[in-house]
C-alpha cells in the first residue's frame, strides 16, 4: 500500500511544533481518515475536532498544505504525496491543542443578532424562489473557514469590531427571509462592522458549501446599510411615510 507523510502540528497554548507521521493511503482516503489512523496507531492523544465525517457538520476545519479546508472532504489523492502533507490548526482562532482551536468567539457574536421576527401581517404562503434565495445562506455548516481566512480577523484580529463573513451570511438569511419584518441595518453598520469588509472574496473562495458569500450576502447587505443610512432621497421618503 502507498504511504504518505503527514506533518501535523502538535502543541498547546505554551507552544509546539510539527511532527511527522507515516500513514498508509487507502483509495478514496481523506485527510481526516489519515488523522484518525494517527490517533488509532501512532499518537492516541492527537487532538482533532470532528463529528460527522460527511461534510455536513463543519467541525473538522484545518489548514491543509496552507489551504483552509474541511479535512473530511480533502482527498489524499488530491494532494502531492511525494512530500509531507502539512496539517495545521486554523490560525485566526486561539489554539487549544494540536488541531483544535477555541471558536467560542463565534458563538458569542451569534447571540448579538436579533432573531427571526415574523411580520405581523405575514400570510404564510412562500414562493419556492424565495426559499431558494434564502437557503443559500441557511445551508452554512458553520465550519468557520470563512472567518479563518478573512484578513480583518486573521491578520488584524478585529474581533471586537467585526463579526466576519459567517455572520453576514446569517444576517442575510434573516434579512432576506420572505416573512421577516425586522431590520438589522443599524446592527450591521455598528456592532457587526460590515464596513470593514473590503470585498476581497477570500471567504467565498474557501466556503465548502459554495455560498457566494461576498456577492450574495455581503454586498447586498452593504447596499442595505447605504440605503438605510446614507441615501438622502430614501431618508426623506421614510420621513414622510414613517419608517417601519
Amino acid at each position, binding site marked *: 500500500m502507498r504511504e504518505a507523510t503527514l506533518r501535523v502540528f502538535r502543541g498547546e497554548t505554551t507552544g509546539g511544533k510539527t511532527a511527522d507521521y507515516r500513514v498508509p493511503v487507502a*483509495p478514496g482516503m481523506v485527510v481526516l481518515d489519515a488523522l484518525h489512523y494517527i490517533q488509532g496507531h501512532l499518537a492516541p492523544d492527537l487532538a482533532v475536532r470532528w463529528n460527522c465525517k460527511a461534510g455536513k457538520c463543519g467541525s473538522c476545519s484545518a489548514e491543509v498544505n496552507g489551504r483552509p479546508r474541511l479535512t473530511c472532504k480533502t482527498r489524499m489523492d488530491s494532494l502531492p504525496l511525494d512530500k509531507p502533507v502539512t496539517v495545521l490548526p486554523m490560525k485566526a482562532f486561539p489554539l487549544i491543542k494540536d488541531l483544535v482551536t477555541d471558536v467560542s468567539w463565534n458563538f458569542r457574536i451569534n447571540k448579538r443578532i436579533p432573531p427571526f421576527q415574523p411580520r405581523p401581517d405575514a400570510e404564510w404562503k412562500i*414562493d419556492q424562489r424565495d*426559499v431558494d434565495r434564502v437557503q443559500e445562506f441557511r445551508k452554512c455548516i458553520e465550519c468557520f473557514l470563512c472567518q479563518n481566512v478573512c484578513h480583518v480577523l486573521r491578520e488584524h484580529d478585529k474581533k471586537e469590531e467585526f463579526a466576519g463573513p459567517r455572520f453576514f451570511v446569517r444576517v442575510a438569511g434573516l434579512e432576506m427571509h420572505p416573512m421577516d419584518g425586522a431590520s438589522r441595518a443599524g446592527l450591521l453598520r455598528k456592532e457587526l462592522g460590515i464596513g470593514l469588509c473590503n470585498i476581497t472574496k477570500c471567504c467565498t473562495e474557501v466556503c465548502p458549501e459554495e455560498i457566494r458569500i461576498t456577492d450574495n450576502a455581503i454586498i447586498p447587505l452593504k447596499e442595505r446599510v447605504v440605503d438605510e443610512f446614507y441615501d438622502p432621497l430614501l431618508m426623506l421618503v421614510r420621513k414622510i411615510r414613517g419608517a417601519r
Partner: protein
Amino acid sequence: MSDRFETHEHDVLIIGAGGAGLRAAIEALGQGASVGVVSKSLLGKAHTVMAEGGIAAAMGNVDAADDWRTHFGDTMRGGKMLNNWRMAQIHAQEAPDRVRELELWGALFDRTEKGQILQRAFGGHTHKRLCHVGDRTGLEMIRTLQDRGVQMGFDVYMECTITRLLRDGDRIAGAFGYWREHGRFVVFKAKSVVMATGGIGKAWPITSNSWEYTGDGMALAYEAGAELMDMEFVQFHPTGMVWPPGVQGILVTEAVRGEGGILRNKVGERFMERYDKQRMELSTRDVVARAIYTEVREGRGTEHGGAYLDISHKPAEYVKRKLPSMYHQFLELADVDITKGPMEVGPTCHYMMGGIRVDAETAQSSLPGLFAAGEAAAGLHGANRLGGNSLSDLLVFGRRAGLAAAKHASTTPASAVDAAQIDEAEHEALAPFQQKQGESPYAIHRDLQDSMQKLVGIFRNKEDLERSLGEIDKAKKRLGRVSVEGSRLYNPGWHLALDLKSMLTVSEAVALSALAREESRGAHSRIDFQKLDPSWGAKNNIIQRDGEAMKLRQENVPEMPDELRSLLAEEKGETARRG
C-alpha cells in the same frame, strides 16, 4: 473540594443538544425553568444535522387525503405493531403543529405551487408526507432550534461529556462529567434530567453515525437504575456508501428513492420485485436492507459489495436541486456524478429503535425525574422506524419531555448530591491514567466493532449472539486494563476510553435482547427463527440492572384501545382495495 470540580445548578438539565434536546430546552425555558444543555460537541454539530430526507407530518399539503390516522397506521405497521400505540398516536397527531411552529421560528421548507410546505414520498408512508428542504432538512431544523434556544437564553455547556448520573435516593439529582477541552470535572445539580443523547451506531464499524453516538444516555440511565426496552432493534439503513473504503457507511438519503431512485443488482435486475413487489424501492428500511444484503450474499452484488442506486433518469437540474448534498458527496468523495450514473450502496448501521423505556405522555423513565426523548428513548418506532419519523419524534417528544421535566422540577424540592458518588465518578474517570502500558482504547474499540458487525448485524443466530456476549465480556475485562497517554487536555484517547464503557453496556443489551427474541420482526432478523411469532409480538424485552448483572425480562406490549384497533383494520382494508 471546589478545586476538583466546578458546580452548576439548574431546574432542568438536558444532556444532548440535537433536535430532541434543543426542543426540550425550548419548552422547559418556556415554562420558566432554568435550563442547562450539555453537549459533547459544539452547539449545532449534533447528529441531527445529518438527517436529510425530511420530517414526517400528516399535513396533507400534497396528498389531501392524508391525516394523523393514516400516519399512525403507517408507523404501527412499519414497526410491526411492537410500537407503543399511545406514542405512535401522539406522534401522528402532534407532528404537523410541531412543523408549523418551526416555520414561525424561521425555518424554511421547500414549497408547493400554492406556497405551502412541500411534502415528498418516503418508504412505508402511504402519502407524500415528508416536509423537507432539499436533502438538508436536519440542518434546517437544528439551526432553527438552536437560534430559538439562544434567543430564549439557555446555558449551553459545549464539549462537555457526562459520565455518570447522580442520584438522591430513588430520584435523580444531577450529573457528573468533564470538559473535553481541559479535562476538568463538572457537577450539575438538577431536579430533572432529560436524556437526549441519540443512538449507539459507533459500536459498529460501518455506520452513518458520528463519533458521539456511543449510547451514553442509555448506558447512564441503565447504570442509574432506569429500564431499557427493545434493545434488539437496531436499524441498518439500506443505503450507505460502500466505496471508497474511507467513506463506507456514510448515509445516502432515502430521499433518493423518494424522488424516484431505482435499485438494481449487478446483472441489472430491479431486485425489489422479489422482496416487495407492491412498494418496491419505497418499502420499509428493514425490508430493503435485507434485500440488498441478500443480493450481495447470493453473488449479485456490485464490484464493491453493494447494489446500484440510480437517479440519473431524472433531469440533472432536478437532481441537483432536490438532492444537492448527495450530488456533492458522491462527486467529491467517490468521483461519481449521480446525474449521469448509479451510486453503489449497501446497508449501514443507522438508528436505534430501542432505548430508555419512557411513559408515552411525559417521556419520563422508570427513574423519577429522569426523562428521555428522541433516539435515546424507546417505544415510538417498535421493531422498525419509518424514514422521516425520527425528526418528527425529536420535535414531538422533545417538547413533551421538556414540558414534563419543567413541571417535575417545579414541584420537586432541591435534591442533595453526596460526595461519595462524586468521588467514585472521579476515580473511575481518572483510572485510565493510572494504568501504564495497558490496553489501547482504540484497539478495544476496533475489536468491539468487528465483533458487533460480524455477530450482531442484519442477520443473527443463536450461536453468533452467544459468541458476541463472550466478546463483549472480554472487551469489558480489557477496558479494566485500559491506559491512555498524554494529559487531560483535549485527549481523544481518554475520551474514547470513557465512551467505551457506554458502548459496551449498550452492546451487551442489544446482544442479550436479540438472543432472547426467537423470531424475526422488523429490523431483528434471526436466521434460526425466520418467522413472525405472534406471542413475541405481544412482548417487549426489558433490560434492567441488578447489582452488577444485566437482567432481561419480558413485559406485555400495552394493549391498544378498540377504536385504534378498528382504525388499523379499516386502513388495512382500504390499502388492500387501493392495491
